[in-house]
């Protein structure tokens, strides 16, 4: 597995000495001052590598909670008659035990679980856990910088995320329960504290958590953009950057432009809740009482929410795309197919992300003529997406593919992205959406294309860069069990949902639609999905065990560049200290994807071009 290229190892030192850029970093002793004890090294660190790992481990914590919640509501959907009294020690009064001793999930809490599952997975795991981890870890290492543009803002970004997590976690223990009106927080359920149990204190804490989360995202995003534009090492032109850098760059721009809009929407929601304004509320009766709110429009919130909400799904998937591009190219030992097309397709996706939001609102009373506009742009997204899929397949086609856990998850990502992307074409048509909206077809679509696919991208990244993070390998056998089980299991969960959805089974029902005669025969299928979900859940426990076991007892790294990769992060010491490179920063002489060129297996970015050699990144 370990790739040793003795020529490159010694050549590296020579070239760094000769061509490296001396920024006199180590002449000032700013490193040690801030990292003198355990607390400043591992907890309140401003070092990007530590902050990246903090994001990852916090993300894993939230992923476990979010996934466990899904198991509880899947139990309810698959086995509605089952006795859940055994969950009482954990869920307490949310399990209602009747006289016969049979425990049932409180319907109100079912909605709270679904809401929290969505909020946690979308924001806390796949936004903060995914881009937070890899942006922080990789940006300075791959572009050749000592740290982020502002290490302090970077640390604050993590701690605002942490605080958001604390607030949301505490809301789980409220006697009225956490917010239960869906992760999209549509008014009036979110705007009127008396609307439901979770709409009171639960919703207030949800808003506070989201506001803190937005601050965290903005601080992070501003830093990522500035660092990528401003702190690249000598020779690292934008067109020589590895693709994860482009992906994170576009992601950060999307975040910085769309999260403030969510903040605006949520701010107006707060005023509606607490100060009696009527931005979103109109002629409404709650519990027989006519409220004096007039003139508001709940659709306005949907517009503001989805103006963030749609870019948000690309904020989730773009980093995964970047990671997978890198991992597939390195493990195929081939240059990435169509580097320039990869960059332009990401830019195109980033642009289109802002003009398709109303496809989430086709059935909310949006003018059908306006819908046409959104249908067309939504379907156009298929073009850059197809370009990317074609390029990934082109990259692995005919290659001497290394079947590692990382590369397998990369291929799994492509599979999931195709399967989930195709159903997006169904849902993007406003006419077909009349039948399919709010059914399990939608659930299947977005879980495959942005849930499972993004997770696969994240796993590919974790297995690939784990040696850089912790100086040890993860266990490959457990990794492969994790991959094959999750691949088969994830399809087993979500494939059947396409059928139930096309048959019309509505989502968001406590009994999974069983109260309708037409849907009663899906009982077996629901049970099958639940069993598959539990199996997949236990496979993720395998991953978590592997992760933490390998941090302390994994096989130790003995070479700097275990995968034979070209990018700069593998030129740092096995355990890089503060400032990443002990001496000069290497300069960049070529793009990041010279694999199998001119008889060499790989040519790292610091190796100068030979006479007459053409740089493939710049020369598009």
């Amino acid at each position, binding site marked *: 597995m370990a790739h040793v290229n003795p020529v490159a190892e010694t050549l590296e030192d020579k070239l760094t000495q000769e061509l490296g850029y001396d920024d006199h970093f180590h002449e000032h002793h700013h490193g040690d001052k801030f990292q003198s004890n355990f607390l400043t090294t591992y907890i309140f660190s401003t070092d990007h590598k530590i902050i990246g790992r903090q994001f990852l481990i916090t993300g894993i914590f939230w992923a476990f909670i979010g996934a466990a919640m899904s198991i509880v509501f899947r139990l309810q959907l698959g086995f509605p008659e089952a006795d859940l009294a055994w969950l009482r020690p954990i869920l307490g009064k949310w399990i209602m035990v009747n006289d016969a001793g049979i425990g049932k999930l409180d319907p109100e809490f079912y909605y709270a679980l679904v809401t929290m599952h969505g909020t946690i997975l979308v924001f806390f795991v796949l936004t903060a856990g995914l881009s937070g981890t890899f942006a922080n870890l990789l940006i300075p290492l791959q572009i050749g910088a000592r740290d982020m543009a502002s290490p302090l803002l970077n640390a604050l970004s993590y701690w605002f995320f942490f605080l958001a997590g604390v607030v949301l976690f505490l809301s789980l223990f409220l006697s009225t329960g956490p917010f239960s009106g869906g992760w999209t927080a549509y008014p009036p359920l979110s705007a009127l504290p008396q609307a439901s149990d979770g709409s009171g204190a639960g919703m207030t804490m949800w808003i506070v958590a989201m506001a803190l989360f937005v601050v965290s995202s903005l601080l992070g995003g501003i830093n990522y953009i*500035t660092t990528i534009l401003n702190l690249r090492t000598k020779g690292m*032109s934008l067109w020589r950057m590895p693709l994860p850098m482009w992906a994170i760059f576009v992601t950060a721009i999307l975040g*910085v432009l769309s999260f403030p809009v969510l903040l605006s929407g949520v701010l107006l929601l707060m005023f509606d809740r607490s100060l009696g304004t009527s*931005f979103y509320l109109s002629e409404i009766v709650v519990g027989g009482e006519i409220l004096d709110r007039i003139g508001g429009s709940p659709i306005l919130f949907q517009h503001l929410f989805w103006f963030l909400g749609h870019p948000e799904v690309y904020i989730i998937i773009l980093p995964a795309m970047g990671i997978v591009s890198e991992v597939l190219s390195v493990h195929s030992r081939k240059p990435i197919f169509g580097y320039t097309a990869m960059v332009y397709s990401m830019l195109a996706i980033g642009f289109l992300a802002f003009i398709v939001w109303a496809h989430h609102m086709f059935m909310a009373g949006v003018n059908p003529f306006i819908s046409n506009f959104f249908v067309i742009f939504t379907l156009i997204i298929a073009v850059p997406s197809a370009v990317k899929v074609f390029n990934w397949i082109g990259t692995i086609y005919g290659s001497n593919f290394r079947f590692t856990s990382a590369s397998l998850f990369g291929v799994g990502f492509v599979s999931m992205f195709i399967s989930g992307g195709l159903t997006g074409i169904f849902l993007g048509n406003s006419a077909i959406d009349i039948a399919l909206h709010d059914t399990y077809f939608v659930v299947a679509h977005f879980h495959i294309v942005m849930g499972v696919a993004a997770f696969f991208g994240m796993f590919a990244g974790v297995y690939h860069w784990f040696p850089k993070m912790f100086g040890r390998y993860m266990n490959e056998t457990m990794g492969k069990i994790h991959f094959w089980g999750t691949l088969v299991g994830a399809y087993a969960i979500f494939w059947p949902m396409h059928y139930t959805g096309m048959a019309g089974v509505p989502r968001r029902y406590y009994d999974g639609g069983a109260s309708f005669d037409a849907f009663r025969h899906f009982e077996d299928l629901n049970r099958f999905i639940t069993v598959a979900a539990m199996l997949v859940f236990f496979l993720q426990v395998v991953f978590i065990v592997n992760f933490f076991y390998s941090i302390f007892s994994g096989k130790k790294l003995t070479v700097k560049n275990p995968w034979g990769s070209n990018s700069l992060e593998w030129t740092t010491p096995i355990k890089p200290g503060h400032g990443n490179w002990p001496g000069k920063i290497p300069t960049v002489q070529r793009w990041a994807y010279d694999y199998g060129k001119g008889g060499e297996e790989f040519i790292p970015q610091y190796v100068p071009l030979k006479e007459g050699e053409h740089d493939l990144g710049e020369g598009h």
Partner: protein
Amino acid sequence: MAALRQEYNQSKIHPHKLALWVAIGSIIMMFGAFTSAYVVRRAAGNWLEFKLPDIFMVSTVIILLSSVTIQLAYAGFKNGKEKQYKGMLLVTAVLGLAFVVMQYMGWEALNQMGATFTVNPSSSFIYVISGLHAAHVLGGIGALSVALTHAFVLPFKPTLRRKQRFDLVVQYWHFVDILWVYLMVFFMLQS
């Protein structure tokens, strides 16, 4: 693509200045969302029409003036004119505070003419948008007070580092000024 391909050089824009530009872009999106919501909501009808109190015109003049004075302070700092630097900085801070006080008086005037916070979204929007803008001005006054401390506590020495820091304050202050002018023009065109 020429801009994308720039080679490495040390005279690039300072990272903190670039970060502030990105943050300004982010703030623009937030106010863009509010004004778009205003337009969409207004088109839906049931909209209370009223004229903005005149005091908002006065506050607009005040904040425009403060942009001129901070620019003069910056010029004084660069050209080694200590008196102009200190004096104009102080005037800017006073004008900034005066602006916030006038916005408050504007809200009082709105309240008195019946355009209260909750009577109709048309007035709610005015309070929310101008209130949030005032919060950003207060943030600017916070930055100004740091600059004031530098000016009056530290010995006068126009080093590169101090120039860069002061430059950030100036950049942000001009931004909240232009933002208010945009909002004011927007309100006047809409009403």
